[in-house]
């Protein structure tokens, strides 16, 4: 336990010192890692703990991002007030959409569940694309800027941490609560859990909504850092991202997907800076991951630890 505390303390120190050591560009990348870490972990609460493979999770990330952007751009509030409202609006919007999508999707399981989430995501994507009055259509919403000093990456970095760290803590407590243990039991054997008297669907729906809400928060945190939102964030090709991150990090650990997010984001920056064929390289990496590393990065470490 004391070793764990030491690691945690070291991590806090490193995170606090990071902006001083990095250029603005890499601070921007660090913010992206922080946002996507929450995205990947919230996705994995659904997949790794609940056994629900959503292939439409980008929808909630995107809805959160659009909700945040709309509050800043169109609510007509003072910049500070609007900004304070962003996390709440993003989570509420994503949770609301997740409640509707989840209501219909948790009625089916396995790959069919994935197809349903996929279908609703595409519906939301076309809405984002076509409701030009609200979303700006193909051009997206651009020119988002946090107020005052927060516009500086080194300051926004700490804002991102103050958003994401409590969210991760809440999710961590959730998966280790009786609710989370029931969730894991559900993954292993839904029928038996049902026989014990648990309402399987409402349990799954609740998880889906919580996961969606935090994905939405991640989307808003990232949107205000990047300064824009595009409909492509909700497209089907975007929904592979959290899956890759979770599998890369390892779906059987809580923070594995966060590690996966960090590796994925940095890889993408490095590769796309070197070649225009980064999808080809990324595809090959994913292929290798799937065929050679079934337990992800944390799995490699664990295997080494036990041998």
């Amino acid at each position: 336990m004391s070793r764990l505390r030491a690691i945690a303390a070291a991590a806090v120190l490193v995170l606090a010192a990071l902006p001083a050591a990095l250029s603005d560009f890499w601070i921007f990348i660090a913010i992206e890692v922080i946002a996507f870490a929450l995205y990947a972990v919230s996705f994995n609460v659904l997949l790794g703990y609940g056994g629900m493979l959503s292939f439409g999770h980008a929808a909630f990330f995107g809805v959160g991002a659009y909700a945040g952007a709309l509050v800043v751009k169109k609510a007509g509030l003072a910049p500070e007030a609007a900004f304070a409202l962003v996390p709440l609006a993003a989570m509420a919007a994503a949770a609301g959409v997740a409640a509707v999508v989840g209501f219909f999707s948790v009625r089916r399981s396995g790959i069919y569940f994935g197809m349903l989430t996929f279908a609703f995501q595409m519906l939301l994507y076309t809405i984002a694309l076509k409701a030009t009055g609200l979303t700006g259509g193909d051009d997206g919403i651009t020119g988002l800027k946090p107020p005052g000093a927060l516009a500086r990456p080194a300051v926004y970095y700490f804002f991102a941490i103050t958003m994401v760290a409590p969210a991760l803590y809440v999710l961590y407590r959730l998966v280790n609560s009786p609710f989370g243990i029931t969730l894991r039991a559900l993954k292993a054997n839904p029928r038996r859990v049902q026989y014990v008297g648990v309402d399987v669907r409402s349990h799954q729906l609740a998880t889906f909504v919580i996961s969606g809400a935090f994905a939405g928060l991640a989307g808003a945190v990232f949107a205000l850092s990047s300064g824009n939102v595009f409909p492509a964030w909700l497209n089907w090709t975007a929904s592979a991202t959290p899956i890759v991150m979770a599998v890369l990090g390892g779906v059987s650990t809580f923070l594995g997907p966060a590690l996966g997010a960090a590796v994925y984001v940095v890889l993408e920056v490095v590769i796309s800076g070197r070649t225009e064929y980064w999808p080809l390289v990324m595809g090959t990496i994913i292929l290798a991951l799937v065929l050679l590393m079934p337990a992800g990065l944390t799995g490699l470490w664990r295997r080494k630890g036990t041998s």
Partner: protein
Amino acid sequence: MQSLIETLSAQFAWMQNPVVIARQALAGLSNGMLLFLIASGLSLIFGVLRIINFAHGALFMFGAFAAVTLTGLVPEGLAGFAGVLIGATAGLAVLGAAIETGLLRRIYLAPHEFQLLLTFALVFILGDAVKLIWGREDHSVSMPEILSGSTQALGVTFPTYRLFLIGAGIFIAIGLWALLHKTRWGIFVRAATMDRAMLGSLGVDTRRLFTTVFVLGAALAGLGGALAAPVVSIGPGLHVQVIIDAFVVVVIGGMGSVAGAFVAALLVGLVNAFGILAFPGLSVVLTFALMAVVLIVRPWGLFGSPE
């Protein structure tokens, strides 16, 4: 009020024009036939292999690009065109065999997310491979002269190639039906969509069955791409939209059902064709709305059966 009625009646003025209706119906049906060629393979692969092949659109795109190359190699005329179709179909069958035996076969027992990521990696890789082989610019393929004119029927002038596509689609649908219902192989395929384990324990070589189903699916996608080549703009982004339409068709028709794919493909083709007239700009939303309604009313699709 008066102006609203005027706008609406202007919007739906085409309804009184039989020529427009006939022409749109023809366009919708012929596009529907192309959709059927992709969706039937996607649906069969899902039914038997239980894998959602996200790369199926990329296979269609490869078929179209193969037609670009082959058209330059064969003599003009109907015989050359037939050669292009056969060549593209055969080429994609070979590619399909390579993908199934080299990659997919290794992950049938892996969790769903691994299967999803593998076909997703293929989307990235094949998408970039197209750019490497054929470049980034759009290509076009001319149709044989005999099919390039127009035909008079029912007092309306139709583009001949559209009529040819509908005929070809019906011909292939009948061929597929015969293959599935009149051959021993077809009986195995239909049995596998119901219970793979049972089929295996009865002594059927399911390994070979999986390979042949995937090869057939890839070949159909290749043929679809080659048939579509003269009427679409062949560029590196072709597969992204194609796969979405194919998914919509498979979800509406019922996953694993070829008859469902046929009906749903024509339905989606027609909804697209008339949606453009009735709700310009919103026709994309229309197909997804159709899918959402089907999913809510009959989550297993029109021709599918509940788990």
